């Protein structure tokens, strides 16, 4: 996140930065940097996934019950929205590489829009959980012998989707930064890698959701 951010900032001062000899070296370095950053992100979510796997093993019934409380339609729509946003992001990268300024701006804006749609749907899902007292804490209420395990499920649900949503918000914030730059024509076929590495970040965040959706919404539902 911070990485992409400072990169975007670096883009202000002419394409070739002083520490590099060639643009190609600069592009290679940025891309590698983003991959390393993504590896780091995998470990970050890995901690949550580990907790999920351990607790699912310890509390299978509670996790199935908890999973049944989630709205699979909204979750499914959100999955579709994110996959579509990955497509618009990929198109944005292509537009940057081929120097299509207006298309680039449009696709970035489309990605931002879809990301926002995702967050709005997520907001309604969260609000519904609040209404039904499914948010862990003092107000949590679930009539079942497995209430504690269900509460644990929801603690993880909010931690995992919350961390994912935070990454979406950061991505959206970066897009707000990128869109005017794109409109001004700062990204050219020679200098498209800021868009490319942002694309890597965006796809990564999507992929995390592709794992979260089945684990939280689908597994053990039937």
């Amino acid at each position, binding site marked *: 996140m*911070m*990485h992409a951010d400072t990169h975007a900032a670096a883009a202000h001062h002419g394409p070739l*930065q002083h*520490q590099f000899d060639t643009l190609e070296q600069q592009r290679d370095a940025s891309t590698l940097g983003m991959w390393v950053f993504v590896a*780091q992100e995998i470990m970050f979510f890995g901690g949550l996934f580990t907790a999920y796997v*351990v607790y699912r093993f310890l509390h299978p019934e509670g996790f199935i019950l908890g999973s049944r409380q989630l709205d699979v339609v909204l979750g499914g729509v959100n999955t579709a929205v994110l996959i579509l946003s990955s497509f618009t992001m990929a198109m944005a990268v292509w537009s940057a590489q081929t120097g299509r300024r207006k298309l680039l701006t449009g696709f970035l804006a489309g990605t931002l829009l879809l990301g926002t749609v995702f967050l709005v749907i997520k907001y309604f899902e969260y609000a519904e959980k609040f209404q039904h007292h499914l948010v862990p804490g003092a107000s949590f209420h679930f009539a079942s012998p497995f209430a504690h*395990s269900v509460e644990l499920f929801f603690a993880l649900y909010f931690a995992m989707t919350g*961390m994912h949503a935070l990454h979406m918000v950061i991505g959206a914030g970066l897009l707000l930064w990128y869109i005017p730059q794109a409109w001004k024509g700062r990204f050219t076929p020679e200098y498209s890698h800021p868009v490319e590495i942002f694309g890597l970040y965006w796809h990564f965040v999507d992929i995390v959701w592709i794992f979260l959706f089945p684990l939280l919404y689908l597994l053990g539902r039937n």
Partner: protein
Amino acid sequence: MTVATMTPRTNYLNVAFGVKSWLLTRDHKRIALLYLGAVTLFFVVGGIFAGVIRLELLTPEGDVVTPDIYNRLFTMHGIIMIFFFLIPAIPAVLGNFMLPLMLGAKDLAFPRINLASWYVYMLAGCLGVWVLIRGGVDTGWTFYVPFSTIYSNTHVTLAALAGFIAGFSSIMTAVNFIVTTHRMRAPGLDWFRLPLFVWALYATSVVIMLATPVLAISLVMIMLERSLGLGIFDPALGGDPVLFQHLFWFYSHPAVYIMILPALGVISELVAAFARKRVFGYAFVAFSSMAIAVLGFLVWGHHMFVSGQSLYSGLVFSVLTMLVAIPSAIKVFNWTATLYQGSVSYETPMLYVLGFLGLFVIGGLTGVFLATLGLDVHVHDTYFVVAHFHYIMVGGTLMGYLGGLHYWWPKMTGRLYPELWAKLAALLVFVGFNLTFFPQFVLGYLGMPRRYHVYPPEFQVLNVLSSAGSTILAAGYLLPMVYLLWSMRYGRKAGANPWGAVGLEWETSSPPPTFNFDQTPVVTHEAYDYRRKEKRVA
């Protein structure tokens, strides 16, 4: 190849003056100095806490501070020394300064991220200081649940946030180092011509990248539980406090290697420079860094032999931990063999190397004690552990850091430190260190638990020895702060290469110009090729 000159010229220090030229710099060398100032500050703060702890332990009764204050003291001592001194010290100061020079690069790959990492570090540091002012935190640096999540009344959330943010700063530094090492090496500088310090920094960066985020998410889960009531580790809900320990040590054991590996790299540089000989078994030393980095990820469970995890997982973690001893031993034997047929001189950095070897050997061997299941049951969470990790962290990392700082000081400042004072300080550190921490091994086997602010009277003699040693140690640390500062203005001017060492960093002037080299150097030889240098000189 740039030939060193001693004529006054523009360098990174005198190229610009003024606060802004420092606070907005993107020069890795200036950022290294910013880090130097910051880590020194935190070292002093953490050291003062250690001083009060040792003062309290002079007597068996709790007569200096209250139990609550004592608990905060050792917690803050741990958090500050680990997150704000040991982890950044060598990479962010010496690594930041030397890595581009050693690679023949103009700067790190991402200078802005480098500067940002310092600001993020300072933000975390300010948050840490804020926690201190508000009354501190008392969970121990290990943040064990459910004490940290449910029972502690101190500022756990803020302290965890400080650790979380500090982690970000290490991640930024690590991305920079990994990418720089891959993409910014001078022509001809292939992987097996890299100085061993670069290998060590690379291995460290990989560990930082893979381990730090796991700590980050563990701390996030603690913060969520405390602030939003998401009881992920709450035993009342069926949450598992031991799972937190697994996640925590999955980071925090590799964190030990984050702290020690760079020091091992520094020692390789110093041994070569002061024996004027290629490091013995170069490839073995390089790969042992990577082996330690990899094995370091597989041994976290050895912190949990008595935690209630299964006996059989104890077996696995024990045997894997034993294996870490091997690459560490390989390094020690290779350094010793480097001295053989060397041309050994005894400047201060070399004294630190000799001290380091002794302390690291003891620290490493006592690690085998702790990895031994039947023995760990007795010494776990006693002063034996405290002594062991101080031998590694202070005897190892800090000796490496001080040795490296003296070695590269002329390069960083263009001035030589006063040799006599420096030797005296090195001696004080070595003697003071052993007097402080060796008695703690005995105390630990006797059964004195760690984190005790009062203790049975029969442990007093050893505790007094330890406290006495700590005053000598403190003097040994204060001296360099004074004479190094003094030398920045009054020290003798250093040439480009005061030690007659080889390595790209010695081929540019001292202090180096902003972009390090007048022309990009071309490397045609192995690392530490002292024979070749001889031929050239001759």
